[in-house]
């Protein structure tokens, strides 16, 4: 088994923010190497460094026995060295045909600059058969399902670019079960003379497919384990680390008030929210937790989910939700929440300004400033000027402004999709304490978070999702109300 790529103490920082430090990995041909860890552990960044998308800031990267120059390591050189990265999102070439996409940048498919039809047909047939795609060469990429686009990217790397090091960054997350199993099968066939890396969130996939697994935590590779010598449970413990926080003492159990909102699917109630409680939704991406929030906020409609207010009708649109006392903080703040060209004040009052102006419809900063200033003070927004442009604020402060916006709406229910996403570490506790202390004092709160610790620290109940279903509801005070247990449940690992 030849060693194809070695990374030793690889480091990457963006500005002052170190995202990967002391990352070690050794990729050998003939072996499927799992890389596992929580979001933000540095898995993708490490792969992007190996594939030359990011150049490392430190450490030694060795490819086929010779160390590379970190500053000159880019994706062109990496591709030439036979390294291919299939990223989480398929490449966007909406209007290219399958054929044009596959042979993009492929010299062999041309004879003196003319399309080599015979070679192309043969290769397309080969890929189509190997991966069972059933696509036509003239299909447009945009018309193909995401998973087929993803498989084409994989096929291009393996069969056309003939890469010997294949890095799959959470490719299985967007695949259907059938296709995923087929791909994992194919990987075991292909591994003979190639090194394959499989980044995944699913421990079960690692257990069934990989030979070795590297666990990453907080930007470091903490351990590389032979898969035959470990168990799913042991692996889950490695991923979370041994930080056992005594959570029950942080906040005491509270008595929740009346039911405010409920979301149900075709046969059962998925989520209920009561006054004076924080409900956390846990689960992997695509587990269904985001769908529940989006349906309740009226921003997306799914046939099998309905959200209704206790004293009102079904929620059908975001405007209706906002009008009936449901305030929503979207996950992608910059895309769906902040209005970039406008000021802090304008961003905060936008949802309520229509009704507070006197006479109605008028927008006078003189009338609006007294509403905004107390919030700027209590949330400690910096800079504290209501006239500051929202884009001049840091991510954490923008999030505070958004929370201020929701508070002005005086809602009964807050739906917070990852309120700590893109928020600097210093600001996170402040935001979380506001959620529990201020928002949940008068209303009901639903929140998601990438970090199980945050949920365990600040929620009263946690609903755990796995593959679109609720697997368990845990309440503060339960023996199982722990980071470990929630992580295990959201992985679908049962003891």
């Amino acid at each position, binding site marked *: 088994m030849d060693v194809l790529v070695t990374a030793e103490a690889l480091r990457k920082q963006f500005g002052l923010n170190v995202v990967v430090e002391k990352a070690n990995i050794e990729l050998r041909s003939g072996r499927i190497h799992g890389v596992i860890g929580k979001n933000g552990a540095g898995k993708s960044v490490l792969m992007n460094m190996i594939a030359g998308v990011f150049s490392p800031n430190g450490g030694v990267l060795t490819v086929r026995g010779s160390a590379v120059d970190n500053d000159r390591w880019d994706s062109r050189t990496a591709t030439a060295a036979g390294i291919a990265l299939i990223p989480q999102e398929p490449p966007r070439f909406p209007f290219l045909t399958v054929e044009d996409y596959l042979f993009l940048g492929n010299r062999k498919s041309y004879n003196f600059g003319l399309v080599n039809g015979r070679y192309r047909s043969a290769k397309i047939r080969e890929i189509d058969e190997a991966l069972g795609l059933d696509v036509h060469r003239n299909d447009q990429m945009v018309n193909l399902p995401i998973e087929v686009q993803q498989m084409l990217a994989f096929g291009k790397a393996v069969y056309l670019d003939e890469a010997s090091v294949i890095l799959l960054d959470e490719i299985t997350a967007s695949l259907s079960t059938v296709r995923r199993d087929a791909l994992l099968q194919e990987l075991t066939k292909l591994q003979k003379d190639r090194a394959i890396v499989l980044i995944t969130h699913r421990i079960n996939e690692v257990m069934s497919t990989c030979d070795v697994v590297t666990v990453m935590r907080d930007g470091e590779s903490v351990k590389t384990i032979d898969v035959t010598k470990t168990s799913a449970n042991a692996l889950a413990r490695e991923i979370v680390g041994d930080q056992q926080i005594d959570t029950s003492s942080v906040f005491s159990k509270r008595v929740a008030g009346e039911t405010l909102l409920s979301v149900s699917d075709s046969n059962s109630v998925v989520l209920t929210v009561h006054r004076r409680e924080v409900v956390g939704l846990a689960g992997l991406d695509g587990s269904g937790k985001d769908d529940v929030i989006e349906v309740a906020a009226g921003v997306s409609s799914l046939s099998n989910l309905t959200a209704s207010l206790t004293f009102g009708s079904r929620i059908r649109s975001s405007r209706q939700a906002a009008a009936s006392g449901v305030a929503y903080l979207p996950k992608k703040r910059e895309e769906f929440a902040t*209005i970039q060209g*406008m000021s802090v004040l304008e961003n905060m009052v*936008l949802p309520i300004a229509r009704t507070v102006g006197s006479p109605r419809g008028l*927008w006078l900063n003189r009338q609006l400033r007294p509403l905004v200033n107390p919030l700027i003070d209590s949330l400690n927004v910096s800079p504290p000027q209501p006239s500051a442009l929202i884009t001049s604020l840091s991510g954490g402060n923008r999030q505070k402004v958004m929370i201020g916006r929701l508070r002005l*709406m005086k809602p009964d229910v807050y739906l917070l999709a990852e309120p700590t996403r893109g928020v600097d570490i210093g600001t996170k506790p402040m935001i979380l304490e506001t959620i529990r202390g201020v928002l949940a004092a008068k209303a009901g709160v639903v929140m998601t978070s990438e970090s199980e610790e945050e949920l365990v620290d600040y929620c009263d109940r946690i609903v755990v999702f796995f593959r679109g279903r609720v697997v368990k509801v845990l309440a503060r005070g339960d023996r199982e109300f722990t980071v470990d247990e929630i992580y295990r449940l959201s992985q679908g690992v049962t003891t």
Partner: protein
Amino acid sequence: MSRKIEKRNPQTSTPKERWTRFYREVLTEHFIWPMVVLMVLIGAGVPGFLTAGNWLNVLWGAASLGCLALGLYFVLMTGRMDLSIESTLVFAPTIAVLFMNNWIPGLNPLLGILIALGVGALVGLFVGVLSNYANVNPFLVTLGLLLALRGLVVFLIPEGVYDVSEGFTALGRTRLGEGDIKVPVAAIVIILIFVLAYLVMRYTFFGKAISAIGNNEQATRVAGVNVNFIVVSVFVVAGVLAALGGIIEVGRLNSVDASMGEGRILLVFAAVALGGTALTGGRGRVTGVFGAVIVLSGITNLMNLVGFPTALQQVMFGVILLSAILLSSLQDSLRKRWNK
């Protein structure tokens, strides 16, 4: 408490800092005003340019362009586009004049004006509803209307109409006052409309919502604003303004001609872009559009005063549009440099 107030107003600075802030603000946000000054300085050498009477004429000539530019400004602010206003300019008064002369002879000219404005509103409503609810790109909808309405006018009044009721043309023709300086009503109307637009954009929810939509439509929707209603209203406003511009123009010419304002939309785009409005939406000022309309109208006036060949005036406007585009990209890079 007093400390906080101080924190909110960090305006205590040296004169030099204040000067830096001032010229940066002017160069990045109000670029049109140095150009107005430049035009005045150039024009100062031309006899008859810097007189009150001439400037009232400039405003008078700017009235219909100003109406169209203001309408397009609102539409562009929401990140959309409207080409049809050029044809609404002639279509709305045509229908009104046909009502007064042919369909209901002797109709009160005041009602005629209302009919014209109503037709403008209907055209805007049509564009707004079609582009918003049927999800058709407004560029294509209004391109279609631009052609269709113009064709309809040519069909309805191929020879033009030369006996337009006096009450109908009053808005564009009449001058108020005695003696040397008589103020055209159209000049007053255009100033009032721009002041109104400025107040709407600055002091109403409607105005704020318009710029929010242009900045980030998705987020505005999520914030609970009725985006569809606002966008449709904006098209209606643009239609009404185009109709008003048409009424003024008909009054000035004292006739309706089927080719009135043909090709004007390009000049309207030039005015709005020159005024610093982002074609992608969300950024732009009413004052900037006003300044740009004055510059374009003032240059036309200057060219007429010095006897610049009419054929070359078109070239001049092309050069102005090109420099407007150049200047706006220059403004963007200045903004990036100074805002870090």
